[in-house]
């Protein structure tokens, strides 16, 4: 889920909001997603993207939420999330201490195949579907790489685009179980 913007970042230089990536372990059952999304919307917190999927333990899902918030609001977000019964563990993924990835699928007009393929090569993007009229490309990477790729594709007329939203894991030798235990 991406772009559930409840409180968009205004283009004003006074804004102290920064991007934060939260990784949250939640009970894997019906209604969890609306609990989390509902908390963000009713408390006027911003969500840039939200991705969710099951973990190594089928009873637990992991949500990765990208939000823009000032420091105090970011604390509030974590404290409010921690009060939800379904939330088991929350941690922040810092850019330099985590692997952050996003996946994008783009449909572009197949007019200049060579030029498109060249750019794909540079970005290591794949062609996943091809027709006379359209090329469908896929790319995985960090947010800035994805954005740069989309920018370059715009010249070929983008006919369709989907981004998964960011997802990630902490780097280093701590296992997930150890991390959770440490947090308790």
């Amino acid at each position: 889920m991406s772009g559930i913007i409840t409180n968009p970042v205004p283009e004003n230089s006074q804004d102290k909001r920064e991007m934060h990536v939260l990784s949250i372990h939640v009970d894997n059952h019906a209604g969890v997603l609306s609990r989390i999304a509902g908390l963000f919307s009713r408390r006027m917190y911003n969500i840039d993207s939200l991705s969710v999927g099951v973990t190594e333990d089928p009873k637990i899902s992991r949500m990765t939420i990208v939000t823009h918030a000032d420091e105090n609001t970011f604390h509030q977000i974590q404290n409010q999330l921690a009060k939800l019964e379904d939330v088991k563990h929350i941690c922040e993924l810092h850019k330099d201490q985590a692997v952050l990835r996003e996946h994008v699928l783009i449909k572009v007009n197949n007019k200049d195949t060579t030029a498109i393929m060249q750019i794909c090569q540079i970005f290591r993007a794949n062609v996943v579907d091809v027709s006379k009229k359209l090329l469908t490309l896929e790319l995985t990477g960090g947010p800035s790489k994805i954005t740069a790729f989309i920018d370059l594709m715009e010249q070929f007329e983008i006919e369709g685009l989907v981004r998964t939203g960011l997802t990630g894991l902490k780097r280093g030798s701590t296992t997930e179980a150890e991390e959770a235990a440490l947090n308790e």
Partner: protein
Amino acid sequence: MIKNGADIVLECLLEQGVDTVFGYPGGAILNVYDAFYKYSGKIRHILTSHEQGAAHAADGYARSTGRVGVCVATSGPGATNLVTGIATAYMDSVPIVAITCNVANNLLGKDSFQEVDIVGITMPVTKHNFLIKSAEDIAPTFRRAFKIAASGRPGPVLIDITKDATAGEAEYKKEIPERIDNYKLESDSADFDEVIGMIEKSERPFILAGGGIIAAGAAKQLHKFQKTIDAPVALATMGLGAFPASDPAFTGMIGMHGTKTSSLAIKHCDLLINIGSRFSDRVICNPKTFARRAKIVHIDVDRAEINKNIFTDAHLIGDAAAVLDELNKRLHKQKHTEWMGKISGWKEKYPMKYSGGGEFNPETIIKEIKRQAGDDSYLVTDVGQHQMWAAQFYGIEKPRHFLSSGGLGTMGYGVGAAIGAQSAHPDSVVVNISGDGCFHMNLQELSTAATQKLPIIDVIMNNNVLGMVRQWQRLFYGERFSQTTLNKPTDYDMVSKGLGANAFTVTNMDELKHAVSEALKTRNKPTVINCVINQDHNVLPMVPGGESIEEPILEITTDGKEVR
């Protein structure tokens, strides 16, 4: 032992020590009501007139006892009628468990008759909620629900059960409920050192306490803390009763309709210690000027309350009783003679007094009711001018004796909550102070009180207008009284008698005295006392929206001038 789902529901209620539930039957919940029939000797079911009344009754039961209140309703409209009551409990952190039944599993999601997604609807107004789809999940879910409702910062929990789950069978084994230990500290010793340093350095400390004291049963600890640090105490509306109103150190309620002394203490203190109050907008008024000269310490059980509405200098997280015990143990006795002298000077100069004149006015009425009902009486209110007059003049001495919808401001809360309080305390005096607007919202519950022979005393401050809204229209909307003049043809005595209550209409103090004493003698049915008062009374002091708490309006003269 194999039991059906509905019987397991009742067994779980018994496990938790539930003696009374408030509810209303219906199609989807038929199985559970069949079990209520079977268990009727063990659990008392009070049938209300409307599900909203049941939710408020569970709330009144919980606030007045500290135990978890329980309400029950069927699917669809039964469940949605609970929502206002659940939201009321949520805003004031009241532990209730609301039980609803839904259509059977195979009908869920098909827009079936009386189907509604009550779990989705109540998500923002419950601490947690559950949908149970099979009988074996009932017992573990109930145990968890009661624990969630009563632990930490209390709150409402809703359990929705499909009809087929109540009919299905499962193994049930009685369990003794897990003991809930809320007496906990999260902050460490260094955090305490910091706060103690701030307190010992302070020359003009001021204590603001709220509902957290009552929830934690920490009134004794608060009193000791006050004695130890020699500081005045103000209470938020939700905290009334947490500190005796008659204590010389009590500055009165604080906030939009708080006392001038509380406002002055906020203005001049050098340290504000907030214990168990959430800096609601009705308390702080304009956040920029609130306690602007003071360092602020916030003590709360809920970490998410820290720095939410007001930025603080230090905080302690934990149960109010546990935190205060620790502080009391470690603090040296303080003395602030000059500061306390200033406080008592302000109290003398700005007494909490009704300024509008007249012999039969809100102050004299509320004080006469209190004089006769006594300190042990439970005071319930609806919402509006009468609520604030009651809060200002009743003089609550004990915790859990003031029941009012503070956060949500739910008109129509009173009668239901009074039913809950009276059924929990059958031998006590329960007074509901209401207005003529609120009376019309849930008057059908008078018949519930009459059916149950509950002797609640329902006082209507009848000014023929929606007084609080009208007060704002008078002050800020150029006296354009849009839809606030009621002019209803209601015959209050006839309606009340028609619903099974005694009734008095009173227009002066002598009639009121007589009516209250008659009501106190009546122990087998409710009494309605309709007090006909002037429509132009104001609730004062008042801090207009957005203004600073430091300069409340104290009086409005007959030509409309504000005295501050």
